[in-house]
C-alpha cells in the first residue's frame, strides 16, 4: 500500500487539528484559574460550581427529557419510514425524509417558528422543541433502518409467508428481531442529535425554556468562564458513550452514516 511520509504528515496534522481544541477544553476544565490562558494548578472547582448552578441543572434536565421523548417518537416514526422506503418506491416519502436533513438547519428552525406561532398559535416551549427534534431525527433513523433492511435475505419473509404467518407475525418474529440493532442504534443517534441540537432549538424554544446547548451559547456569548469547559467535557463524555454504545450494537452504522 502506498502511504508515503507526506501523506502521513498531512493526515496527522488533520488529526491534530481535530483533537487539539477539544483537548484544550478538557484540560482547562481542571485548571485553577478564571482565565483560559495558562495552566495554574489542578482543581475540581468548576465541576463543583457546575453541579450547584441551578439554571444549568434545570437546562440539563430539560435536555434529557426532550431527548428522551423526541428520540423515542423519532425511532417509532423513523423505523416506519425506513420500512416504507425499503418496501415501496415512494418518491414523496423519500423526499420528505431527506429534505430536513439536507437543508441548512436554520431554514427548518425559522419555518417551524413561523408555523408554530402563526398557524398552531402555540406558545413556544417544551412541546415545540420536541416536535422540532422529532422532525430532524426521523431521517437519520430511517436511513439506518433502511440500510439494515437491504442486508436481509428476502427469502426469510417468503419462508414466513409459506408457513402461514400474518403480516403482524412476520414483523414480530422475523423482521423486527433482524432490524432491532439498527432501530436501537437509530434511537441512540436521535437521542444524541436531540441533546446536542442548538440551531433548531434556538428558534423553537421561545423565552421560557433553556436546554444545555442554549445555556452554553448564552454563557459563551456573554463571557468565557471555565464552567463552560466543565459542562463541555461532560457533554463530550455523554456523546462519546452514546456513539460507542451505538457502534457496539450495530457496527455497520458508523460505516453507513451520512
Amino acid at each position, binding site marked *: 500500500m502506498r502511504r508515503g511520509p507526506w501523506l502521513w504528515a498531512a493526515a496527522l496534522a488533520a488529526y491534530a487539528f*481535530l483533537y487539539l481544541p477539544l483537548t484544550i477544553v478538557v484540560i482547562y476544565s481542571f485548571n485553577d484559574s478564571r482565565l*483560559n490562558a495558562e495552566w495554574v494548578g489542578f482543581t475540581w472547582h468548576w465541576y463543583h460550581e457546575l453541579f450547584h448552578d441551578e439554571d444549568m441543572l434545570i437546562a440539563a434536565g430539560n435536555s434529557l427529557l426532550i431527548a428522551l421523548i423526541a428520540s423515542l417518537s423519532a425511532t417509532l416514526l423513523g423505523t416506519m419510514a425506513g420500512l416504507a422506503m425499503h418496501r415501496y418506491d415512494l418518491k414523496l416519502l423519500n423526499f420528505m425524509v431527506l429534505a430536513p436533513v*439536507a437543508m441548512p438547519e436554520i431554514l427548518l428552525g425559522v419555518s417551524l417558528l413561523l408555523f408554530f406561532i402563526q398557524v398552531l398559535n402555540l406558545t413556544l416551549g417544551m412541546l415545540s422543541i420536541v416536535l422540532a427534534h422529532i422532525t430532524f431525527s426521523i431521517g437519520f433513523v430511517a436511513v439506518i433502518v433502511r440500510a439494515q433492511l437491504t442486508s436481509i435475505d428476502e427469502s426469510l419473509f417468503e419462508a414466513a409467508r409459506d408457513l402461514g404467518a400474518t403480516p403482524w407475525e412476520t414483523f414480530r418474529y422475523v423482521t423486527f428481531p433482524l432490524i432491532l440493532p439498527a432501530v436501537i442504534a437509530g434511537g441512540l443517534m436521535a437521542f444524541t442529535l436531540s441533546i446536542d441540537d442548538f440551531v433548531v432549538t434556538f428558534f423553537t424554544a421561545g423565552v421560557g425554556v433553556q436546554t444545555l446547548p442554549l445555556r452554553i451559547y448564552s454563557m459563551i456569548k456573554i463571557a468565557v468562564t471555565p464552567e463552560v469547559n466543565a459542562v463541555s467535557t461532560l457533554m463530550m463524555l455523554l456523546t462519546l458513550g452514546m456513539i460507542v454504545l451505538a457502534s457496539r450494537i450495530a457496527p455497520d452504522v458508523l460505516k453507513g452514516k451520512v
Partner: protein
Amino acid sequence: MNDERKLSRSTRFPRWLVSGPPLLFLLLLVAIPGVIMVFASFRYPGEFGGLAPLAASDPQTLHGFTTETYRFFFSDFIYVEVFIKSFVMALATTLICLVMAYPLALLIARSPKRSRNLMMLLVILPFTSNFLIGIYAWMIILGPQAALNQLINILLGIFGAAPVQLLFSPFAVMITMVYVYLPFMVLPLYTNLEKHDPALLDAAQDLGANAWQRFWRVTFPLSQPGIFAGSALVFIPAIGMFAVPELLGGIGDIMIGNLIKDQFLGTRDWPFGSTLAILLTLAVLLVVWLVAKLSGRGGRYA
C-alpha cells in the same frame, strides 16, 4: 418480478399503515411550514412584529400580498453583498476542508482493513460533540491572552508591524467553520477512495507513471464523486451558519444566517426574514443542481 411482488405482499402490512404516520408527520412539520414561509415572504410586516393581517377594515393599514420585501432586498446592495460574502465564505470553507480532508481520507483508505474503522471513528468522534464546544475551544485558542495571539504579536513586533487580533476576524470565522465541517468532507471521500482497485495504480506504475502522475491521472479523477458529495455536505450547512460569525467574527463578517436570525428574533420583520430564507433555499438548490450536473459529467470516469 411482478409475481414475486404479488406473493410477498401477503406478508406485508398495507402500504398506508407503514408509510402513513411518518409521511403525515413530515408533511405537517416540513412541507406545510415551508409553504407558509413562501406565503409569509409576500406579506407585509405586522405593526408589532410578525405578519400584517391579510384583510383589514381600515384601508390605511397595510394588508394583503405584496412583492415589496423582494424589491427591498435587491434595492439595497448591503443585503446582496452579505449573500455574496456568505457564498465566498462557504466556498472557501469547502475548498480548505477538501485540501485538509483528502490526505486524511487517502491515508485511511490505504491503511490495513482492521485499522480503518478505528481511524474513521477518530474522525467522526470530534464531530459528534456539540459544535458550540468547538466554537468555544477556538475562542480560547484565538483569544487575545492566549499563547498563539501573543506569539504572533511578538513576531510582528520584531518586524515592526502593528499587533493584530485573531479573534473577531474573518480568519477566526474561517478556521472554526473548517473545524466544524471537516469530518463531513472526510466521510464521503473515504467511502469513495476505499473502493478504488489498487491494481490500477500498479498498472499505472508499470506503464511508467511517477507518484504525481498516478495521483492526478488515476486516483484524483476516480474520486470525483466523493469530492462532489463531500463539497455539498460542507457547503450547504456552511452557507446557513450564524453561530460562528456571531461568536467569532467581527461586525463585517456577518452571513445570511445572521440576517435571517435578526429578522425573526430581533427586529421581528417576518416577511423580510422569510424572503431571506427563501432566497437562501433557492441559492442552496442552485448549488445542489450545479453539483449534480457537474458530477453527472464527471461520471464518465467512474
